[in-house]
């Protein structure tokens, strides 16, 4: 039928194929109304619960409200956790349904596929962050000194980190049971050590060292900077850069672990 066509060389990265993949992933999401509803509403609802928990607890004079501190941090933690879970399950489904094997026989490159996922869920995370931040500052009186757009930006970068780690983790999961359990493995230590439960300066030296290499630490620090200063600080931009770099590194590792030939 097309025996005469010349083969198109497969570029390592094609914006066209990345976009096609991102829009396919978003279409899949659109057909799943309950997931869309949960993505949009759940973080706001959980934040509301935290607001109620601390609403009657008095704070020491001169200290920031406990909810302001924790609520702001959670704006970075929610997108990270949710996108990690959604992505690792979505990628596992690609694997088990045979569509991944099929995609690997098409001109779609592995970076195209992974970036397509990153773009789709990054966009979903941006919408989620807009909703959550809006609800947090209007309904829960969350006090943020800096621009809210920066909070959304940090949330999206956190989501990208979640997507990238989710893609990487799915390579090591043989079943849904395993994939789901990677969530506590990847997420909880980062959450425990990010400085929210115990200030990082009070951690034992070696725990601080571990905390120093965990990307969520920088995401939380970035949010604190936005919470405390009216202008974007240099520290915040460095933090955002570190999180984005960690996301890219995880994406690169995910591409390397995605084997075209399997047994």
């Amino acid at each position, binding site marked *: *039928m*097309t*025996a005469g*066509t010349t*083969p*198109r*060389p*497969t570029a390592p990265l094609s914006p*066209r*194929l990345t976009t*096609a*993949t991102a829009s*396919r992933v978003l*279409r*899949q999401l659109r*057909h*799943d109304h309950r997931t869309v509803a949960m993505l949009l509403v759940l973080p706001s609802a959980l934040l509301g619960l935290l607001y109620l928990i601390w609403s009657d607890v008095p704070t020491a004079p001169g200290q920031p409200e406990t909810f302001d501190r924790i609520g702001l941090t959670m704006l970075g933690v929610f997108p990270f956790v949710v996108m990690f879970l959604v992505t690792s399950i979505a990628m596992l489904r690609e694997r088990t*349904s*045979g*569509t991944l*094997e*099929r*995609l*690997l*026989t*098409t*001109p*779609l490159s592995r970076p195209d596929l992974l970036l397509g996922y990153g773009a789709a869920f990054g966009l979903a995370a941006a919408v989620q962050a807009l909703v959550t931040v809006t609800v947090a500052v209007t309904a829960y009186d969350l006090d943020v000194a800096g621009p809210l757009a920066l909070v959304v930006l940090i949330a999206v970068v956190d989501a990208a980190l979640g997507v990238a780690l989710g893609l990487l983790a799915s390579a090591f999961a043989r079943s849904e049971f395993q994939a789901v359990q990677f969530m506590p493995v990847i997420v909880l230590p980062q959450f425990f050590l990010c400085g929210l439960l115990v200030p990082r300066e009070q951690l034992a030296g070696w725990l601080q060292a571990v905390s120093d290499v965990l990307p969520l630490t920088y995401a939380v620090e970035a949010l604190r900077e936005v919470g405390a200063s009216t202008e974007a600080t240099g520290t915040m931009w460095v933090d955002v850069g570190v999180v984005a770099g960690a996301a890219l590194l995880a994406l690169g590792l995910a591409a390397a672990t995605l084997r*075209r*030939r*399997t*047994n």
Partner: protein
Amino acid sequence: MDAAVTVTDLVVHRGARRVLHEVGCSVPPGQVTGLLGPSGSGKSTLLRAVVGVQQVRSGSVTVLGRPAGSAALRSRVGYVTQAPSVYADLTVRENARYFAALYGRGAAEADAAIAAVGLSEAAGQLVEDLSGGQRGRASLACALVGEPELLVLDEPTVGLDPVLRVELWSRFHDLAAAGTTLIVSSHVMDEAGRCDRLLLLRDGRLLSDSTPAQLRTRTGTADLEEAFLSLVHASEGSGQVPA
């Protein structure tokens, strides 16, 4: 004319088990080659090696003049896995358009591929709401949409009603007449007679690589199922594959 696919001394292990034993064969271009054999004989493994997603222990597979799985082959080879590999949470049309985009084709080609497998009326339905046979055809449409030079189909007619099966086989021959090379696997011997060429695989060994007519002559029987059985007996009796 050069063979579309040449397999030389292909050995594949799965875990500790050897699933393909020094298989060698060639697939002529512009024909329908049937890969026949019972379930578990290694058909899917051989097809996976041809499309370049199977780890191989030794031997080589050359497809359209290049090593199987080469980047340049990915726009020229279409692959339909045994289990329908399309997105269940997308409609037939959305699936076809996505794969069309991957092969650099547009919406018109996607609609044409859907029509070619007789799914036009179900184009707006989610794949998860389709019957098993319809899902298989949706999966086939997603390979046809790329208009590949080599089409590798793993048991494409399983679960289809007889009328549809005949239609699909005539579609395969239309494609071959237009120059496409097809490799179609099946465990149903009555499909063997529809192929231009036959590869018979059993327990990871190639028993025969010939045309149906040659096979009938060699085994002295008109029935291809009996021909296959006599080859099996011959190979077991002598421990040798008949030449």
